């Protein structure tokens, strides 16, 4: 096992897949000569040339649509959005074309395309550059949505996403790119659609994905000091959603806390909360707790922006509430 950053794990996935299949191209802003705004595509231009690693003008709708058209015609395409905040410019193409072409043509096309880039808040970027947009994409039938939280899964899931014949939205995060983790030396893939149990436990199920997984793990460690044993589930895929793993865990622990850094209305977090309440009702010892970001645009001020997002303290408080614990 090698210790790799999330960024380098993604880069390896791109490199290995491009080497394997000459039909794969990458398009996006600054992906080629600049080596990627976040350096995820570093070195790929030198290795694969400008016909496969393609710099674009700042035209998210245009180049995303070009990628979708190329995928419909038989190429395998990776679209990098510099951030998901800019994916909104391209949303029409994703929603109306990528997610619909197969269905409304009666199955005549495959859409092997990955839309990837950093999603969710970083720091000091205010409202337009701090958005966690997973709920929007996960809402759309015809897409798969993936959100890894470790370098190992980032690499394995990106390889699966590239090989998938469906459009896959692949959520990274700016603050995760420098996270390190163990990545096997040999090639591997992680299948889309399976959650991972990061820590086994008996008293409460904590469910999260992507960047807030770090908070979930820290909270679990703190709770262990209070003799509260948390089972921590990393969803990894948001569509399809591995409900079975969540339900089985909740039926064991009888309590559920969900952390999702998107806004609360119609989010993945509230959706899972609803599903757990429906499917595990007789097993629950307390109402399901959902921790989302606050229902406001993101402010610039650091104290305010931290207050807007899920925190370790908020997770611990929610676990205590549903455990009817008195301390704190």
């Amino acid at each position, binding site marked *: 096992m090698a210790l790799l950053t999330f960024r380098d794990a993604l880069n390896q996935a791109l490199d290995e897949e491009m080497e394997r299949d000459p039909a794969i*191209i990458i398009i996006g802003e600054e992906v080629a000569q600049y080596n990627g705004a976040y350096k995820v595509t570093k070195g790929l231009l030198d290795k694969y040339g400008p*016909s496969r690693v*393609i710099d*674009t*003008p700042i*035209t998210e*709708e*245009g*180049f*995303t*649509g*070009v*990628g*979708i*058209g*190329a*995928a*419909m*015609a*038989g*190429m395998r395409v990776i679209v990098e959005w510099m951030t998901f905040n800019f994916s909104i410019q391209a949303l*029409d*193409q994703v929603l*109306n*074309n990528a997610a619909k*072409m*197969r*269905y*409304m*043509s*009666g*199955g*005549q*096309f*495959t859409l092997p395309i990955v839309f990837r880039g950093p999603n969710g808040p970083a720091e000091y970027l205010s409202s337009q550059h701090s958005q966690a947009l997973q709920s929007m994409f996960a809402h759309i*039938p*015809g897409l*798969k949505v993936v959100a890894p939280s470790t370098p190992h899964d980032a690499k394995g899931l990106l390889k699966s996403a590239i090989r*998938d*014949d*469906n459009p896959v939205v692949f959520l990274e995060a700016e603050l995760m790119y420098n996270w390190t983790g163990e990545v096997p030396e040999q090639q591997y893939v992680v299948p889309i659609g399976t959650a991972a149990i990061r820590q086994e436990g008996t008293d409460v199920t904590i469910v999260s994905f992507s960047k807030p997984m770090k908070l979930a793990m820290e909270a679990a460690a703190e709770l262990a000091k209070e003799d509260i044993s948390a089972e921590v589930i990393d969803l990894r895929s948001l569509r399809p959603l591995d409900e079975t793993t969540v339900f089985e865990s909740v039926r064991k622990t009888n309590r559920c806390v969900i952390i999702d850094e998107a806004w609360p209305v119609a989010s993945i977090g509230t959706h899972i909360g609803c599903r757990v309440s429906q499917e595990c009702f007789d097993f629950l010892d307390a109402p399901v707790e959902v921790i989302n970001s606050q229902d406001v645009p993101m402010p610039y001020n650091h104290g305010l922006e931290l207050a807007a997002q899920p925190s370790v303290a908020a997770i611990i408080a929610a676990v205590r509430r549903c455990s009817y614990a008195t301390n704190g």
Partner: protein
Amino acid sequence: MSSKKTSLPYAKEFLEKLLYQMLLIRDFEEKASQMYGLRKIGGFLHLYIGQEAVAVGSIASLDLARDYVLTAYRDHGHALVCGTSSRSLMAELYGKATGCSRGKGGSMHFFDAKNHFLGGNGIVGAHIPLAAGVALKIAYNKEGGLVLCFFGDGAIHQGSFHETLNLAKIWRLPVIFICENNQYGMGTDFRRVSSVTDFTLFGNSYGIQGRQVDGMDVLAVYEEFVRTGKHCRENLEPAFIEVKTYRYRGHSASDPAKYRTKEELDEYKKQDPILILKSKMTEAGVAGQDDFERLEARCRIEVDDAMEFAEKSPQPALETLYEDVLV
């Protein structure tokens, strides 16, 4: 059938093919319109009647083994000319399982991947980047093909159009962007909403050769596309063509078209693309009334057969609701 040359520089078979395709589009749509009135067909029905020469003349210049066609929601004519069977298209309008899109697309979403007809798109301008993507594939694989991307004067102000023209130019993509200017974006006269009335200026703004052609004359359309297509293929270049045309019907079946005068419509009907071709063929001595009646009879048989096929075809099974969301 004679293939002798006439004073028109085309074989009789070729001219009859063009005439037949225009007749077929018109008959097919008139039947569809009638069936829409009887509620056999639902949703929106955007008719192409009046514009037939555009799809027929331009697609006649293609080799669909390597070339592709994409258009917007007024797509019946383009699909027919690409060779999709009138049966499967009428069945699609009926929402039947035998439809080209298995009853899931309807009028705006005809597709025929085998014949390189990639839709049909219901969002104004959304298919324009897709067409450039198909051209990117052609260029990447050095296939020698060409993409025709049709849209209306209503789409030309969308960002997707302007973004794509720029991309096609910088990446040297073999695609012809075709604005079928039928003069009304739904009920809006294009002169009311456009900063320019000569749309070739938009092409020129991106360094793309822009040309105009009379869309009521199928041979003029054909000749322009042969010329421009050759240039695009040989030089790996995009082009822009504004085709001046006119739709006889409203924007969709529910539009009484009160935004224009009867006199205007009548004036255009005098330049009907079918009449123009017929008179050219007659003047050249290549065909006469008997030939036209033979073609019209064949056309009626084809459309009646398509309707009968659609009527008799089964409804899609309920379980197909869940099919083809993903692979």
